[in-house]
C-alpha cells in the first residue's frame, strides 16, 4: 500500500480500498478534523500541498477527504460541494506537477483514460477521454489541438490541467450521492451550514433588466445563483454580454461572486481584460458552438433578443 499515493489521490481505487478496509470512526476527533479541513478549503479556495511523509498525517488526510465529502453531501449545498471540489483539485494539481510520466499515466488510468508517450515529450490521450475531462474553455477546444489517429497530443502542463479537471469533476459529482447519512455526519453538516455561508456571498445586489435578456443569459445567471460551476466559455460569454449591454465592470464582477471558485482578483483581471479588449457578443451560432444555447429563439444575435418582438 502506497500511503503517499493514496493521500495525494484519494479518489483512486487504492484509496477507496484503504477507506473501505479502515473502519472510519465518527468520533469527535475525526469529525472535528474533517470540519477544519473543510474550513481551510472554503477560506482560501485552495488547499496547500502536504509536504510530510509521516504516516499518521497522511492517513488523517485521506480520512478527512472521505468524511468531508460525506459531510458536504449531507449539507445538500452545491455551492459548498463545488467550492470544496475546486480547492481539493487545485491541491491535486500541485501533486500532479511533480509526477513523472509513469505517475501521470497511473492517475489518468484512475479516470479510465489511457495515456501514451508522444513525440517531443508530449503525451497522447484518446479524444473521447480528452473531451470528457478537458476544461470547457476556449484554450482547450479540440479544434486547436493536435489530433491524429484518434489521439490528442498534449504538452505536460495541459495534461496536468486536464487531470486536475477530471479530479474536480469526480469530487463534485459524487458529492450528491449521499443518502441516509449517520447522525454524526448530519450533525456536522448542520454545524457547517451555520458557520459557513450555504450560498455564495453575493457582494451586493446588482440591478439587471433581466426580462430583456435572452434565454441563454438568463439560464447562465440562474446557474450562477445556484453556484453551479460554469465552464470557462460560459463565463466569458456572460461577461461579454453584460459588458456589451453597458453594465459596469464592478457590477459584472459582483455577478460572478456566487461562483464556487470565486476569487475577486482573478475575476477582476478577466472581466477588465474582456472590457479592455472590447470583445463583441458572439452571434447565436457562436453561442450554440459553446454549447450554452438554451432555446432556439432564432434572433441571430443575443443582443437582438427582445428588440424584434
Amino acid at each position, binding site marked *: 500500500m502506497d500511503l503517499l499515493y493514496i493521500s495525494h489521490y484519494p479518489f483512486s481505487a487504492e484509496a477507496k480500498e484503504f477507506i473501505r478496509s479502515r473502519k472510519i470512526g465518527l468520533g469527535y476527533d475525526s469529525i472535528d478534523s474533517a470540519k477544519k479541513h473543510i474550513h481551510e478549503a472554503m477560506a482560501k479556495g485552495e488547499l496547500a500541498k502536504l509536504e510530510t511523509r509521516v504516516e499518521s498525517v497522511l492517513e488523517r488526510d485521506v480520512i478527512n477527504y472521505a468524511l468531508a465529502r460525506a459531510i458536504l453531501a449531507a449539507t445538500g449545498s452545491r455551492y459548498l460541494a463545488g467550492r470544496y471540489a475546486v480547492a481539493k483539485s487545485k491541491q491535486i494539481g500541485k501533486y500532479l506537477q511533480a509526477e513523472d510520466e509513469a505517475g501521470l499515466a497511473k492517475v489518468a488510468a484512475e479516470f479510465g483514460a489511457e495515456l501514451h508517450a508522444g513525440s517531443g515529450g508530449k503525451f497522447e490521450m484518446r479524444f473521447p477521454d480528452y*473531451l470528457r475531462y478537458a476544461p470547457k474553455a476556449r484554450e482547450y477546444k479540440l*479544434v486547436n489541438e*493536435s489530433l*491524429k489517429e*484518434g*489521439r490528442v497530443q498534449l504538452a505536460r502542463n495541459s495534461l496536468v490541467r486536464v487531470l486536475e479537471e477530471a479530479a474536480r469533476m469526480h469530487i463534485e459529482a459524487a458529492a450528491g450521492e449521499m443518502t441516509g447519512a449517520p447522525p454524526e455526519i448530519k450533525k456536522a453538516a448542520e454545524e457547517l451550514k451555520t458557520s459557513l455561508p450555504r450560498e455564495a456571498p453575493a457582494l451586493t445586489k446588482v440591478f439587471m433588466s433581466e426580462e430583456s435578456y435572452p434565454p441563454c443569459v438568463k439560464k447562465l445567471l440562474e446557474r450562477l445563483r445556484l453556484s453551479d460551476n460554469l465552464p470557462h466559455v460560459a463565463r466569458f460569454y456572460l461577461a461579454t454580454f453584460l459588458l456589451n449591454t453597458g453594465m459596469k465592470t464592478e457590477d459584472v464582477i459582483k455577478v460572478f461572486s456566487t461562483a464556487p471558485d470565486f476569487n475577486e482578483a482573478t475575476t477582476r483581471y478577466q472581466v477588465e481584460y474582456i472590457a479592455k479588449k472590447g470583445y463583441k457578443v458572439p452571434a447565436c*451560432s457562436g453561442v450554440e458552438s459553446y454549447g450554452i444555447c438554451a432555446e432556439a429563439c432564432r434572433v441571430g444575435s443575443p443582443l437582438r433578443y427582445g428588440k424584434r418582438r
Partner: protein
Amino acid sequence: MADDVQLTMANTEEQFVRRLFQGYYERIDAERLAPKEIAKREFGVGTWTKKIETRHLAFKGPQELKSYLTRNPAFYISYSAAYYEFPDGRPMQRKNWQGADLIFDLDADHLRLECVEKGEHAKGWVCGKCISVVKDETMRLIEEFLVPDFGFSKSEISVNFSGNRGFHVHIAGETVRQMSGWARREVVDYISGTGLNDDRIFHMDSPDRTGPAPDSPGWGGKMARRLIQLLETGKFLDIGLEPKLARRLLKKKEEMTAGVRRGKWGAVKMTGAEYDQLCWRLRESASVPLEGIEGAGGEVDAGVTFDVSRLIRLPESLHGETGLAAKKLGRADDLPSFDPMRDAVVFGSRPVRVKCREVPKFEMGGGEFGPFSDEDAELPEFAAIYLICKRKATLWK
C-alpha cells in the same frame, strides 16, 4: 389491366403512395431494415404532411418493426441514434439514456450549390450536380477527418443515402457511445473548423513567419497541405481569395511551396490582414460545413450530431418526399460510384399517367424524363411516385 384499375379509381395521391410503400415494406427483409440493438431504440413516424408525427415508439425485434410498417406504412420513419433502457418512456428522462451512436448529416440544403445559384433549378429540387457536391463533402469528412484524425477505421463507418438530398454517416461502438452532447459538439467544431485559433498555428511575429508544415498534426497540417495544393492548381479564386493576393502567391509559387514544406510561410510578404484572409479561406475550404453555410439557407443540422436524443432516418426505409430508399452503402468506398437516382430506386416501371407541374429534365432509373410544364405524361411508376412525392405531379384522374 392494372393500369385500367388505377385509372378508373378515384385515387388520391396519398393513398397511391401509401399502397406502394406498403408493398415495399411487405417485400423487405426485416433483418436488413432493423438497426443494431433495435429494442433499445426510439422510433418516430411521419405522415404525408409531417416528417415526424408520432415519437416514442419502440419495437422488440425486426419482425415487430416490419409488421408495424406493413400495417401502417409510414411516409417517414426515423430512429434514435441513442440507446435507451425504456425507449418508449415519456418524458425523455424516463427513457434512461445509455449512450448513442455518432452521426453526421450531410445535406445539399447545407451547402452552397452552383446549380441553385445559377438558377438551373429551384432550391427544393435536386440534380446530379447537387448530389455530387454532397458526395464530395461526405468523402472529405471520412478521408480527411474521421479516418486520419479521429482514428476510425473504414469498417466502423457506415454510410447511407438520406432518401432525398444527402448522406448520413453512422459510427457505432464503445469509443463513441458514452460521448456527451458537449463532446459531440466539439467534434462538429473540429470538422467545421469552428473556433480555430490561428495564433496557435502561426507565429507571425517570427522573422521567417513560422507556420505549420504539411505533416503537422491537426488543423495546421490541413492548412499547409491545402495551400500547397492550391499553389499547384492555381485555383485560389475558387476559394474566394482576392485576385491580387492570389496573383502574388502564384508569382512566387516555387519559393512559397518550398517554404511551406519546411513550415516557413514568409516567401510572399503579406500584411496581417492578408494573412488573416488567407488563413480564413484555407480553413473554410478544408473544412466540412456541417453547420450549413450562412446565406445558403436551409435547415442547419449539426444538431443531428450533438443532440443526443435526435431521431434520424432509418436506413433502408422510404423517404416520403421522394419515394426513394435510404439505401445503405456496402462500404464507405462505394460512395463515389453511388447514384441515388439509379441505386435507391425501388419501385417498378409499370406506366402511370400523371399531370405534371413545372418539372425540370431529370434522369432516373436509367431513363431521362421531362422537362414538363403543366402537362400530362405517362411515366414509369418509380418516376411518377418521385414527382408525386415532390408535389410536382398529381394522378391523372
